[in-house]
Each structure stands twice: as C-alpha cells, then as structure tokens.
C-alpha cells in the first residue's frame, strides 16, 4: 500500500516537472519511461548520459580497427601521412605485400599459421576434453592435487619458460631435428602444452553441469566409459568445445614471443604474427600500409571460423535431459 503511494507520488512529481518545463518553454517533447513529457535535462539525467558513455566506449574499441582498415586501403601506405579520413582508397598496400617485386613470403606465413593454429586448437580440444572427462567423472587418487597443479602451472604464462623451452628444444633438435628449433611441429607441441591447463578447467566446468544420471543411464544401457564420453558427453558439450577451439585459435594466431624465440632464423617457417612483425619492424613507417593489409587478411580465418561456429555456440543444449 505504502509502495503504491510512493509510486503515485513519483508520478506526480514527474508530471509537475514536465509542466514546469513546458511553461519555461523548454518542453521539446522528450518522453520518459512513464510516458510523461519532460525536459531535455530530465531525459539526460535518466537516460542520455548512458549514450555518451556508450559512444565513448565504442570509439575507444573501434578506433584501432578503423585505423588499421583505413591504413590498409589508403593509397599512401605511410603511417606518418595517414589521415583520419583518407583522400583516396586503393589496393596498393595489398599489392606491395602480395605481388610487387620484393614482397615478403606472406602466403607461406599464412599457411604456416593455419597449420599451427588448426593442429593446436584441435589438439587442445581433444586433449582437454579427455582430461576434463576424467577430472569431472572419475574419482581417483590425486584428482584434486592434479587439478590444482594444472591451475597453478597455468598461472605462469608459457613465455616465462621461454628460455627453458628454447634449451629443451635445442637438445631435442640435436637428436631429432624434426622437433628441434625452427620447426613448426615443435612450436605446435609447445603451444599445446601451454594451452591444456586453463582449457581443461573450462571444459571440466561444463562437463560438471551435465547431469550424472545421463552417465548412469548410459552405463546401465551398456556403454563403456569411452562410449559415454564419446556418445553422450561430447555431443552435449559442443558449445564449450567450439568456444575452446575458437579461443585457442585466436591466442595461437596472435602469439609472438614463443614463435620469435623458437623459429628465429628460419624465415620459411615463420608464422603470420612473427613474419608480419619482423616485416614491419624493418621499416615501420614505410611498411605500415602493407602490414595493415596483412593484419586484415590474417583476421579473415577467425572471422570465417566464428561465422561457421556460432550456430553451435548456443546455450541450453542440455534442455530436456532431466526435468528442470
């Protein structure tokens, strides 16, 4: 009763405000949530300031993208002469990167990155899903310590261990050159090792939310552990698997520190991030345009994967399993 009264009072003050605004001549017809007319000041205090914040955030987020895109398509190809609104658009920068005499081996780098990213992401999904299933569904000695170890190791980024990894690969390369320094295969293995911790946790969290009755039901129906994993759990976990794949892909394609340390000196095995970074560093101002063009091309695979994957990233796939 008292709450109703309060609401009525608020409504009245709003009406009064609106009237006051009209009398003062400022009533330009803004309509508030309650349907009453009120002045610009009232609208701004209620809603308008949010638009300002949103606009600011948008500009903050999109300006770098805009800068790279205009950089790639502007005809100058020069960082210092790039304008906020370019005078003319051209594909000169793409030509300089891909076909002009003296262009870098961009497509080799691109292919290298694709191979490394796909193998790493796929491997991460498979290995982490297997590990997560064990951690989520089995009870064994060392389960909790194992999970905590994964978490703690994950807290130190892979690049911290870059010297150690470098030395290990150097030794391995002495015996087995295919997994030594400068090899994409060894880089992929290092990426895989670095990815497993956090992604296993992520997938385990999702597995935990799949009702145990499904496992038990499958068990009684005659399924082995692997069949339960493969036929029941995995299909239900597709959204998180896609997310993990995507995250891993993005992280891997952007990774620079390890690639730089491990692939040093073997230009044919450069990944996109490493190749482009070295390319632009050799002449930052003049090579800015082609670099921006290369960045845009390297973003396309992620865009494509996201486009095809988004229909799998739907929540509520488990709806209907058990009465909710």
């Amino acid at each position, binding site marked *: 009763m008292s709450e109703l009264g309060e609401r009525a009072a608020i409504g009245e003050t709003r009406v009064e405000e609106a009237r006051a605004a009209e009398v003062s001549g400022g009533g330009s017809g803004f309509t508030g949530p309650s349907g009453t007319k009120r002045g610009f000041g009232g609208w701004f205090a209620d809603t308008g300031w949010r638009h300002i914040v949103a606009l600011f955030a948008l500009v903050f987020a999109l300006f770098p993208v805009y800068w790279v895109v205009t950089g790639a398509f502007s005809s100058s190809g020069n960082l210092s002469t790039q304008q906020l609104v370019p005078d003319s658009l051209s594909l000169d920068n793409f030509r300089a990167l891909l076909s002009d005499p003296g262009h870098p081996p961009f497509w080799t780098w691109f292919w290298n990155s694709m191979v490394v990213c796909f193998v790493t992401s796929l491997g991460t999904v498979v290995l982490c899903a297997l590990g997560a299933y064990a951690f989520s569904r089995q009870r064994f000695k060392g389960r909790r310590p194992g999970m905590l170890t994964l978490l703690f190791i994950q807290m130190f980024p892979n690049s911290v261990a870059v010297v150690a990894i470098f030395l290990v690969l150097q030794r391995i390369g002495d015996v087995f050159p295919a997994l030594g320094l400068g090899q994409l295969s060894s880089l992929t293995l290092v990426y895989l090792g670095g990815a497993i911790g956090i992604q296993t946790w992520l997938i385990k969290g999702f597995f935990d939310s799949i009702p145990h009755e499904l496992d038990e039901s499958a068990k009684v129906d005659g399924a082995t552990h692997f069949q339960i994993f493969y036929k029941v759990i995995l299909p239900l976990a597709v959204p998180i698997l896609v997310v993990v794949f995507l995250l891993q892909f993005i992280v891997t394609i952007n990774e620079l520190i390890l690639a730089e340390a491990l692939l040093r000196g073997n230009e044919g095995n450069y990944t996109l991030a490493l190749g482009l970074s070295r390319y632009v560093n050799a002449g930052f101002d003049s090579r800015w345009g082609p670099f921006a063009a290369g960045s845009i091309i390297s973003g396309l695979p992620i865009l494509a994967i996201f486009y095809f994957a988004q229909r799998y990233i739907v929540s509520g796939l488990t709806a*209907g399993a058990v009465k909710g």
Partner: protein
Amino acid sequence: MADIVLDHIDKIYDNGYHAITDLNLEIQDGEFMVMVGPSGCGKSTALRMVAGLEDISEGELRIGGERMNERAPRDRDIAMVFQSYALYPHLSVFDNIAFGLKLRKLPKAEVKERVERAAATLDLTEYLDRRPKALSGGQRQRVAMGRAIVREPRAFLMDEPLSNLDAKLRGQMRAEIAKLQNELGVTTMYVTHDQVEAMTMGDRVAVIDKGVLQQVASPRDLYLDPDNIFVAGFMGSPPMNMALTTVERDGDHLVAEFGGARVAIAPQLLERRPALDRYVGRRVAMGVRPEDVKECEEHRDWPSDQRLTVTVDLVEALGSGIEIHFPVPAPRVQSAQTLAAEEARAASDAATPDADGSAGGSSGQAEAPASGQNMWIGMFGPRSFVRLADTIEVGIDTAQAYFFDLDTGLAIRD
C-alpha cells in the same frame, strides 16, 4: 528374466555412513517388488547397488543365480528408469530408445523393429523424431520406459519414476506401468516414497527405514498385519490411530485403559493374538485403523464396553466418506519409530501434495503435536450427519486393533 536375491547386503560409505544394514530380499522371477520408505532410508542405494552404480560393501547380490557383485552394470542385463528420466537430449526419441540396442551392435533392421514395437506399446510412434525437450513430462517418462522395455532385460529397476509427474498423470502412469509389467512379466524392483504407489503397484512391498528392512509382504498383509509400529504408522492413509494404553484384566476379558476411559478388548482379538495375555498390567501401544472407528449412531448394537465418548474437532467430507478428527484422552505414542513414521509421512505428503484426496487428512495428523492432544481419525459413511463440535459416541472395533510392545516396537501376536 530372472530372480534377484540380495543376500546379507551392507552398504557402508567411505565416510563411515552405514546406509544399509544386512538387507535380505528375494525377488521372484516376474515379481513386482516395491521398496518404500522415507527419503534417505537407503532404498535408492539398494536399487543402485543392484544396478551396479554403487559398490556392495558386504554380502552377495545374485541375479538369476549368478553372483553380480563384481560385474559392470552393462554386464548385468538390467534396465533402469531414473527419477529424472535421464534422456539423452541430443538424440531423438528413436535414438534414445535405440541407444542400448545400438551399443550392443544389433542389426539395424532389428533395432528399428524393436524400437517401433516398444514405441507402439507406449503410444510414442508419432513422437519418434522429436527431441526430448519437445515432449511433455508424461511423454518423457514414457520414453524412459521405452528405453527400458526395448532392451528386453532380465530385470527392470525403477527409481521413483513417477515423482516428477503431476498427480493426475501419476495415477495414470501408475496403472500403465503396473499393466505393462504384468504383460511383460519382467522382474521389477521399484523404489518409491509414496505409499499409495507401493500399495497399488506391488506384488509385494518391502518397507525400509534407516537402512533396515522392516517388513516384506503383500500390500494386504502389510496393511492388515504390520510387523512393527513403524510399518503400522507408515502404511495406510489416513494413518493408523495410535495411543498409549495399559492392558488390564477385567473379569474374564481384557480392557485397554484409555486415559480414564476403558475399552474392552474383543475376545476374537485375544484368540488371534494370544500373546497379549502376557502384557496385562503393562503399557503398550494400541493402534486402530480409521475405518475401524465406527459411528455408533449407525451401529446401534455396538457393544457398549467398546465405545468412547468424544468431541469432534474437525470434519472433512471426502464424498465417498467423512473423515472426523477427535482427541482421545490417552497420550500419544512417541517412540523413535513412530516419530520416524510420522516424519516420513509428512515428507511424502509434502512431496506429493495431492496424491489422492485423503492425503490431506494425514497432514492434519502430522500437525497434531502442536496442540499436544492425541488426535484420532475415524472414517464414517458418506451419509453421516456428524458436525463440528458434536459430542458423539464412537465404537472402537477392538477385534481389528493392533498392539505393539513399547520396548521393541514389534507387534504383539503370539
């Protein structure tokens, strides 16, 4: 098809909790055995041990004469229906039902034929292409049943399969499952906390409390001849009336002293339960079913020494009869067992708010402790004129009364 034998089964969890103590149960080939008891009494644990989802701490489980303790669930040839149905949400109804058959690598044509036959039995044919989430609760329940029957297993295990359904559907599925089991003749273990399900569905009913088997008997025997005070208080709706009395000898017959009033014990009862003679002068628990409380207005020739004069506290017209509640002067029976039975009833009533019309009456009984009075319930005929606050005479049919030893909780028989 096979019999299931639980031979001195114990379940002790790693944390030391003793969930089941020395459970002995023989389920005949083709029998419908219902296990009933309050929540947390261990009945589901027992079922899961038979399924192989829980380890057996001690004792032996045999299905069809073979020891099963160490066998994986998939090698036990049993099918289980879960309370939550546990349907695979990513599979169609057809694939849900076919799941177990495909795992066993049956030929495609046979899988199809068997799934379609099961679907036809359960009226699911038109839903075979749907996903579980597009089904109603009752249909999901049927798919879960279909998944069990299509396997043609040696035994069905059902863990409260109806408790997620609304009251009307539950009654309907109750009849359907019982009929289906009867037709298929598959040995069935059925767990429920709902005593109505237990009474209506089971060939035999096993009552379990706190991990201990209380009694196994046909629903009729369980109702008419309970072994102990827990079973007596748990089975029946509305529940059995109980009071503390002292058995006294009065000339050539026995009487139950009733807080001042005295009720003569019919000689027929003494013939059936001669052991009562040894309890003369001792405190015992007396139980009377509500239908054995008679309206003297209707039974005018009711023996005058088997009557109580009471004041009606509550009248509930159920249509088919009238439930009258009245306080009796004798104190309530408050042993661990009766409290357990009361709690169990209250819990099961709360879980199944309108299992049937009479369940409402029993919750009234559960509230009685607040007033401190011992409320009894009588079932009168539908044409009774008894009204609230009337003082009436009720006849106690002591020939059908029950007496229990207060120390052991066991029925006093012979």
